């Protein structure tokens, strides 16, 4: 191996030959992180966007930790955010004034993974929606409540629908007609919920099941990231387990590999219409507006989907959902 390194250096020496030694040194040492596309030095140039938009954004916390950003949609404190990130606990919102206010969920659109939240706060300004269609190559900025944006990127693909993915609880049954668990897939929801081989599945969210295809049917109504109630029989006992639906890792057992993709949102597929952008966004910073250089919202960040992409719902889809969420409920649907 040492030999190889020696050869490699020799090769490099033979092939090198830029004009200015100083320039070459700078080029090979590399760019300061501060000047990377996502670096502070670059983000500072977008400060004027943050100044324009900060009153239209809140940070949503559950029990004191940030779970999402929120997009302000009216002056009385109504905010849209990513529903599946709102874990149970005490919900509060942080305002650009660095004040914390109480918040509560008033409605959820499960198809779009949107939650309508009421923040008990004054001085919020509704976001201005962009009407022009997003163009590939356009700046796509994710402002937060601070002086510079959380992250920036560009629109990387044309607007499209993202199909839902089939999600799993992670069990293998004895047979098509026996719901006794033979094996658990490592790292998936059933194992995490404490199910064991030999346990028998009796019902899913109250729906009685006896065959494998009934289970598959039942699960098809849910998506990755959602939690379902599984009624389980273990020897003489019966109990309910809360099982999270997940995607198996194509490269191995357990949760999706984050080595290649970085952290992605638990719910990252099944959206009516999204703008794809190349912003490297932490999953807990979804829910806020994606804005253009005019500070207008060209979308609402709805999922960190992979190494190279983040999705934002289009303004049309968001506004339609908002109308429905704001309309007084005709009938409480049974859950």
């Amino acid at each position, binding site marked *: 191996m040492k030999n190889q390194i020696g050869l490699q250096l020799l090769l490099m020496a033979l092939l090198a030959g830029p004009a200015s030694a100083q320039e070459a040194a700078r080029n090979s040492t590399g760019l300061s992180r501060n000047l990377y596309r996502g670096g502070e030095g670059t983000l500072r140039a977008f400060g004027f966007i943050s100044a324009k938009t900060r009153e239209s954004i809140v940070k949503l916390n559950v029990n004191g930790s940030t779970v999402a950003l929120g997009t302000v949609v009216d002056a009385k404190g109504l905010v849209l955010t990513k529903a599946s990130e709102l874990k149970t606990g005490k919900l509060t919102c942080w305002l650009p004034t660095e004040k914390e206010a109480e918040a509560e969920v008033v409605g959820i659109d499960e198809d779009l993974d949107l939650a309508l939240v009421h923040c008990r706060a004054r001085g919020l300004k509704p976001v201005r929606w962009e009407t022009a269609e997003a163009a590939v190559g*356009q700046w796509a900025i994710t402002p937060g409540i601070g002086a510079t944006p959380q992250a920036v990127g560009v629109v990387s693909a044309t607007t499209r629908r993202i199909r839902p993915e089939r999600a799993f609880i992670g069990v293998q049954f004895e047979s098509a007609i026996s719901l006794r668990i033979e094996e658990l897939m490592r790292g998936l929801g059933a194992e995490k919920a404490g199910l064991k081989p030999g346990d028998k599945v009796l019902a899913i969210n109250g729906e009685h099941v006896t065959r494998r295809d009934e289970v598959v049917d039942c699960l098809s109504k849910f998506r990755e990231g959602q939690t379902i109630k599984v009624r389980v029989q273990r020897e003489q006992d019966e109990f309910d387990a809360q099982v999270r639906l997940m995607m198996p890792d194509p490269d191995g057992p357990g949760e999706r590999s984050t080595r290649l993709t970085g952290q992605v949102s638990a719910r990252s597929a099944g959206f009516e219409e999204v703008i794809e952008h190349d912003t*490297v966004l932490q999953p807990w910073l979804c829910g806020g507006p994606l804005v253009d250089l005019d500070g207008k919202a060209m979308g609402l960040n709805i999922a960190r989907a992979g190494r190279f992409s983040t999705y934002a719902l289009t303004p049309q889809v968001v506004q339609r959902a908002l109308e429905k969420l704001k309309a007084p409920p005709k009938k409480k649907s049974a859950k």
Partner: protein
Amino acid sequence: MRDEKLNMAGGDANDRRRPAGFGGGTSSLALLLCCLVVCGLGRQPGIAAEAAKSSSDTNGIALPRPTRVSRESLPAGLLRPAPESIADLRAIEASVKVLVKKVSPATVAVEVGGATGSGVIISSNGLVLTAAHVAGGPDRKVTFTFPDGKRVRGETVGSDENSDAGLMRITEGGPWPFVPLGELETAKVGDWVLALGHPGGFDSRRSLVVRLGRLLRIRGDSLQSDCTISPGDSGGPLFDMHGRVIGIHTTISGSMSENFHVPITKFYSEWDEIIPAAKVEEGT
């Protein structure tokens, strides 16, 4: 072994891997020795332009010369260490939007032996630059898919495993849309660059995927940017703001935003390696 070697070349890439998990990603000491003999001693190594002049026409397969440009022809907003104003940001955006339209038609998805990657057409007769680990050996069947969905046939020409530079050609019809080649003499760290390709593999429901980044490091045998490339992008082009190809996506790192491209200069200096030996002999 390969990764070890690449680590040496790439510097601080501790966790470097190929975007696509196929192709012979291993090189041997013997191969490296062989390469040293052929490209290090067998012919005069030189900077891009000279190498291009001396070795760009092998057996009728000619590599176009790099297109010369001056940095000053770009808007000032693109040349600052960091954008300083809304005008700078608008200048970058305007350039990117124009470039995307200009270079997309020549960027293709490639399918070789059941695997997919990306490539870019560099001549009207259909020469396609890609990664060696996408192309594999010579004379393999390739299907190219254009951004508009049009599919055409072709074949692999050859590849240089050491640099991961690969070459294919379209064998039907033409003339094809193509993009100019660049060089790295005028490139500087911090230059804005565009990465195009098909991350995650070709998806008929999705358009070509564009990413914007900056050049992080420029070395003789590695070029790094913070464009977020991913498996499936392999072989796809990295463009400078003049719209010239200056790199071909090769390897991703453990960091989202420190990825690797085969420097375009490798295609000039390793041209004789890329074209299979048998064909070189026939030609001379």
